[in-house]
């Protein structure tokens, strides 16, 4: 494979994955509104297109044409770059997620992952936690007290869940003996090899932390629309507002994809092509996100910290210890 072909291939893959995730974000909002509507005895969007399928596009267009308001009290520069900081990390993490088995095309073998990084898990942990800067800076720079409180909450929350988020993955790394996501997927070729069965505690901790990381109910403290109006988002409008939103949904999709990859065999599955399996598994976890939102009340700020530091963190450490002992003994 020549250098040029290689570069072209990478660019093509990046564009395809980027477009897929951004479409995924748009239709995640559609799925959320539709499903939430059904769960709440409503119908959700119906007017734009069949089953309201064009609604996300209409929403996007509407937001683009809205006036972009910058509050007079705001730190203008930070206010402008904060949405970008929140927007990017969700997409970055997708660089290492294996999307399917290698395919043969024009005589080349093309691996269906943008980069088969040998420290894939570390890369994901590193990138996803960057998103908090966007939220904290956005909240602080808005010059509004509600935004400030939202920003503070988000940074406190992200820090306390980041630790358990990472620690939950450690037992899997210990069992798998690798940090590369491609190899972790390769090890889970049958359903019985899924890591969720080998270490369900790790899955539970990771999933709870993933919900907290993405600021979704019952952990949506930074937004908490009944308390902080819209938290760090309060002063944002137009495209900047929607960038935060797309960032949030990209984070959700990434978290769902990581869970599917690490614990549920990634793209592996019978009959259907690999990428489709990954998409299906991601959708299942997106549905869980939405289901949580329709069911749970919101935790309070201090209770959220308690759960993170006093319950999940020791549990994750214990899980690492027990896994270590078992691996040592057998």
């Amino acid at each position, binding site marked *: 494979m020549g250098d040029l072909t290689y570069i072209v291939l990478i660019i093509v893959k990046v564009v395809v994955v980027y477009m897929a995730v951004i479409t995924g974000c748009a239709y995640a909002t559609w799925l959320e509104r539709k499903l939430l509507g059904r769960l*709440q*005895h409503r119908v959700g969007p119906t007017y734009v297109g069949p089953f309201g399928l064009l609604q996300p596009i209409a929403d996007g267009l509407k937001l683009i044409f809205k006036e972009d308001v910058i509050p007079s009290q705001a730190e203008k520069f930070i206010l402008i770059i904060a949405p970008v900081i929140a927007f990017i990390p969700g997409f970055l993490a997708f660089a290492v997620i294996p999307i399917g088995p290698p395919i043969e095309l024009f005589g080349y073998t093309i691996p269906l992952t943008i980069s088969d990084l040998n420290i894939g898990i570390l890369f994901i942990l590193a990138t996803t936690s960057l998103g908090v800067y966007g939220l904290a800076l956005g909240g602080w720079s808005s010059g509004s007290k509600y935004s400030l409180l939202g920003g503070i909450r988000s940074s406190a929350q992200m820090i306390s869940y980041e630790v358990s988020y990472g620690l939950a993955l450690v037992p899997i790394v210990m069992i798998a003996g690798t940090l590369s996501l491609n190899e972790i997927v390769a090890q889970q070729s049958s359903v019985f090899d899924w890591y969720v069965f080998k270490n369900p505690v790790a899955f539970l901790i990771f999933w709870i932390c993933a919900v907290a990381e993405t600021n979704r109910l*019952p952990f949506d403290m930074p937004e908490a629309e*009944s*308390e902080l*109006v819209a938290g760090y988002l309060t002063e944002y409008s137009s495209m900047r507002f929607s960038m935060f939103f797309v960032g949030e949904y990209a984070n959700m999709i990434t978290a769902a994809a990581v869970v599917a990859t690490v614990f549920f065999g990634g793209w592996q599955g019978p009959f259907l092509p690999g990428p489709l399996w990954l998409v299906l598994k991601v959708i299942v976890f997106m549905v869980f996100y939405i289901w949580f939102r329709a*069911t*749970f009340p*919101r935790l*309070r700020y201090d209770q959220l910290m308690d759960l993170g530091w006093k319950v999940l963190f020791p549990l994750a450490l214990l899980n690492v210890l027990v896994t270590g002992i078992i691996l040592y003994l057998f």
Partner: protein
Amino acid sequence: MTTGAKTMTLNLGPQHPATHGVLRVVLELDGETVLQATSYLGYLHTGIEKNAEDKLYYKVIPMTDRMDYLAPMSNNLGYVLAVEKLLGIEVPEKVKYARVLLTELTRLNNHLVWLGTHALDVGAMSMLLYTFRERELILDIYEAVSGQRMMSSYFRIGGLAYDLPIDLDKKVKNVLKVLPEKMLEYENLLTNNRIWIKRLTGVGTITAQQALDLSLTGPLLRSTGVNYDVRKAAPYSGYEKFDFDVPLGKNGDCYDRYLIRLEEMRQSLRIMKQALNGMPEGPYRAHVPGVVLPPKQQVLTQMEALIFHFKIITDGFKVPAGSYYQAIESPKGELGFYMVSDGSNKPYRMRVRPPSFINLQALSPMVIGRLVSDVITCIGSIDIVLGEVDR
């Protein structure tokens, strides 16, 4: 409590998603801990009390609807009972039963909205849509009896505006059947939900002594264990004939108030059942010429009735001089109407004891030293309607 650092003043409201209208609370915050909470009122002041002094007695009724717009029938009842007392009118049994039936229905309506909005404040957004679905059944009954879904203005001095509709029986029975099932569903979602319990227990705690000092009433007072319900303490409109329990709490926190209100809804259903089964036949207005409108049929055929009708509509009726305080148990607490008459056809003074306004005093002692989230929980738990607070 201060850490030496500067505190932050946060203006919560009057435009805020969780202040149930236009309540404005100015919070002094240290981080997220509340050091001081001051309520500022008056954003929905309508001058109903003053306006009443310039209106004929029967024209005040529609204004009372607008105070606590989630419990219009209760407001109507408090007002008409006070005026009836001044006039010395005794209403027929059927009217009493109908009024009990409809005010208990109003209690259900109020508590359903309260449950939905309170749950929404705490973050369980689906509850709002579920409770509003059931509220629709109640609004249908309002519409059937009065033609209006919210501002019913159905009660009249000396009776009701119209006779009860024929299919009321069927509609009320439907509510009696559907609501207990749906309430089980609500409880499944909330009562044993760990997060719900965590958010409500120990939050907004008041002691019995505090509650009495602040003259709180309604579920707020009963959550502290004080057994005071106007329906039992000073029965009106024939409540002494009905068999029902008054649920009491122990801890005086938000969770107790949640349980109490749910139990009150069950008791309301019980009262409604008794009222429906025991509803006597008879006229829907007292026969008091010159004060209560004569039946329409007589107006069309008899000269005397026509004159009375004309007189009452254009000039009202004179009420003997005197004053009277009538309290009723509205869904939010003791709703009182203090009427003073100087013998003319308009009230000399109408003073309302609004439960929302007085209960709102409890907000500050409830939230000091707690977090911003608890402020929202407590506002929801106190159950205020700003229309009534500001009048």
